[in-house]
């Protein structure tokens, strides 16, 4: 009977196994960790959507894996005078419907970005500097700006070019694939919302054609299920491998891993604005009369009390890099003089005593628990480290969905956030996190602690007007030094992203954390 049973089991397995089917050599299945909500490349400026759109659409300027700017649909870009950029477009590029790519498509894309209805986060943030786009000839564009605007190439690397035929197509038409006409290495062949996106190679692609004829992206948001799908061989690649599984996957002879330091900084924001801040108390739990975070020595002490190497090693399982500034040193606009703050509990205690808190104080540290890699555990660890210098730290972690609004409304005193620099340079981080909050100029829009330093503002403003790259890099480095030495924020670490692959496949991890099928190759 047991033999009979076993045979049935095997037969069943074989039959079902056949149904699941071994994928053809030119097919690739990838499991993504975040939901892709729309195939309209102009609807929602959201990382997972952009990552998929990059397969089907091109930008004028592209970013390589380290976010260095390289040629895309534009072959050259140069500033002329104080208020013009001349963009030369790539000749001989065709859309997947056979029509030629020209300057009209660029103008149409800029127009559609401003038009697309109901957008919860529009791409206009990347096109608003363009006051007017003038077609000089079919392959030359003149972009006019108000005053010098050195970030134009970075902006051009952040919005996609669609066919002018789709200029008035609503989002639904992109989701139905009828309007999704691009110039990229792939075209959409099937879309089951919330489940999978199937791509087919664009045989007329203007650049090197990718290795995979058919790519299936599956949306598996549960991390354990994603790892299981890779282990079971249902997919050949997964993104966002949970840190706890990395060791296990490393030891598995059938798999390999790809890793890359990302452009995402994990840091602590502090309330620099209010005279009394809600979550700082004396040891007895009574609110403090003044906000200790206004004292540089307190900020320095809190930073010195954090053992960053310890966090990286114990909490992040070695998969992150201790941070001393806003972006890792390999990025544009960083300083060579900002190593991570050394762990120094005695120095921290002394600074606290000098500041008038010899016995420390009580504080509640806030953070999300489902947004960044191991975020909830990171704040617990930081709180424990603070207790060693006499600071009684409580921890309150909550889901990002409730956390984000509270953080923006300045409801916390000291709290953990992350920042990924979409442009790959510190200008994004500086102007968003450390520049003085100003609604009219759009500076400091994510400065949830309302740090304000006129000296930094001045250097940064100059950097944002300087078109010469080398000079701008120096100014940005200088601004970073001012902000970090004044402890405007407390940097903790840079996230490292991890991809899991079937043995025999290689992937060059990207600083922007995107998962791109055209960059997946068979090892030679």
């Amino acid at each position, binding site marked *: 009977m047991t033999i009979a049973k076993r045979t049935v089991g095997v037969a069943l*397995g074989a*039959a*079902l*196994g056949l*149904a*699941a*089917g071994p994928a053809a050599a030119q097919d690739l299945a990838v499991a993504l960790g975040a*939901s892709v*909500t*729309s195939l*309209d490349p102009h*609807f*929602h*400026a*959201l990382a997972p959507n952009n990552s998929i759109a990059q397969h089907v659409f091109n930008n004028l300027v592209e970013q390589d894996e380290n976010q260095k700017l390289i040629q895309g649909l534009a072959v050259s870009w140069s500033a002329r005078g104080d208020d013009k950029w001349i963009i030369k477009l790539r000749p001989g590029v065709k859309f997947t419907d056979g029509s030629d790519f020209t300057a009209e498509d660029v103008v149409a894309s800029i127009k559609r970005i401003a038009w697309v*209805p*109901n*957008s*919860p*986060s*529009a791409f*206009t*943030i990347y096109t608003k500097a363009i006051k007017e786009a003038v077609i000089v000839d079919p392959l030359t564009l003149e972009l006019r700006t108000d005053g010098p605007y050195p970030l134009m190439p970075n902006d051009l690397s952040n919005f996609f070019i669609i066919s002018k035929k789709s200029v008035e197509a*609503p*989002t*639904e038409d992109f*989701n139905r694939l009828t309007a999704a006409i691009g110039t990229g290495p792939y075209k959409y062949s099937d879309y*089951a*919302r*919330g*489940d999978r996106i199937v791509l087919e190679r664009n045989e007329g692609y203007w650049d090197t054609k990718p290795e995979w004829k058919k790519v299936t992206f*599956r*949306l*598996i*948001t*549960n991390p*354990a*299920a994603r790892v*299981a*799908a890779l*282990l*079971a061989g*249902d997919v050949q690649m997964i993104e966002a491998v949970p840190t706890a599984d990395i060791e296990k996957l490393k030891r598995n002879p059938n798999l390999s891993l790809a890793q890359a330091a990302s452009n995402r900084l994990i840091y602590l924001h502090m309330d620099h604005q209010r005279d009394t801040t809600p979550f700082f108390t004396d040891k007895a739990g009574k609110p403090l009369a003044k906000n200790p975070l206004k004292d540089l020595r307190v900020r320095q002490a809190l930073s010195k009390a954090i053992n960053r190497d310890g966090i990286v090693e114990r909490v992040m399982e070695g998969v992150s890099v201790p941070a001393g500034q806003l972006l890792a040193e390999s990025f544009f606009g960083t300083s060579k003089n900002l190593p991570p703050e050394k762990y120094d509990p005695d120095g921290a205690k002394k600074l606290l005593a000098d500041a008038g808190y010899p016995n420390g104080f009580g504080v509640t540290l806030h953070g999300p628990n*489902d947004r960044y890699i191991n975020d909830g555990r990171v704040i617990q660890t930081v709180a424990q480290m603070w207790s060693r210098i006499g600071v009684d730290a409580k921890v309150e972690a909550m*889901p*990002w*969905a*409730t956390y*984000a*609004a509270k953080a*923006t409304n300045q409801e916390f005193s000291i709290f953990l956030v992350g*920042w*990924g620099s*979409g442009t790959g340079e510190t200008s994004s981080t500086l102007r*968003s996190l450390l520049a003085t909050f100003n*609604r009219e100029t*759009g*500076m400091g*829009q*994510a400065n949830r602690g309302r740090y304000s330093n006129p000296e930094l503002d001045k250097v940064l403003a100059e950097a944002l007007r300087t078109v010469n790259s080398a000079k701008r890099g120096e100014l940005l480095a200088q601004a970073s030094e001012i902000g970090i030495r004044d402890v405007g924020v407390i940097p903790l670490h840079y996230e490292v992203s991890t991809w899991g692959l079937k043995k025999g496949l290689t992937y060059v991890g990207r600083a922007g954390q995107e998962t791109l099928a055209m960059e997946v190759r068979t090892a030679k």
Partner: protein
Amino acid sequence: MTVFIVRRLMQSVVILLVMSVIVFLGVFAIGNPVDILISPDADQLERERAIRALGLDLPLWEQYFVFLKNAAVGDLGRSFVFNEPALRLIFERMPATLELAFTAVVLSLIVGIPLGLYAGLRPQTVTSKGIMAGSIVGFSLPTFWQGLMFIMVFAVMLGWLPSTGRGQIGSFLGIKSSLFTQDGLAHVILPAVNLALGNAALIIRLTRAGVRETLLQDYVKFARAKGLSSRRVVGVHVLKNILIPLVTVVGLEIAGLIAFAVVTESIFAWPGMGKLIIDSINQLDRPVMVAYLMMIVLLFIIINLIVDVLYSVIDPRVRLQDVKG
């Protein structure tokens, strides 16, 4: 009976209205979705534009009023993140959830009723005790753990079944479902069993309890005395009389499986409504959350109504009428 049904439907409208207020207040309390939805690079003016575009600048009562006005003509709003009508999104996901729930219920009935009958008729045997012990395990295991174990054993170690996702979709008599293809069936087995186990355990226990109680009734004794075969005694006299509690529970279970298969759907990456609602909560996609919860309330109302009607069919003594207090 018609009067009963009409009156119940009218009560349902009131329940729906009350629910809509509760749900609306609930999602409003969670937080401002703009902070989740907006690109971190967006500046203050862009944030204000997004708030206006999504209609979040209006006071709560006005947002609710707009919602009611549109709901009256069948429009439950437009998803913030998908930019498609919320109802369309829900209906798009419904077949996947229905086929999963259907398979799970059928499985739990096929397994639960016979085992429960056996355990009820022969309570002292080792097998019966084994079944009862097994049923405790069945509903005490946490679904997420159990699901992951299934994946580890049957997909990763044995490689018999696919780990996650929904299979190919076939069509039969115009109905499209993954249950009509071999690949689809292979995909549905693990999540359906995962959902069915807890329910099967419940049905075993209910059936056993019902059987034990019914066996002592006079009409069973009488049937036995009359010399009816034990097959007929069990199949007709016992089984029919334990159906009422079973129908109640199965009805609620179906509704529960459809509405709250969230855990199983996310572990198995099953593209059903449960996964939609959990993604919507994480992204604070208010229109979808509200529309989904309204749909679920409606579903429970309808299933309860069907259960009540079934009572009167199964048990002729039951008359459908309003209880007057």
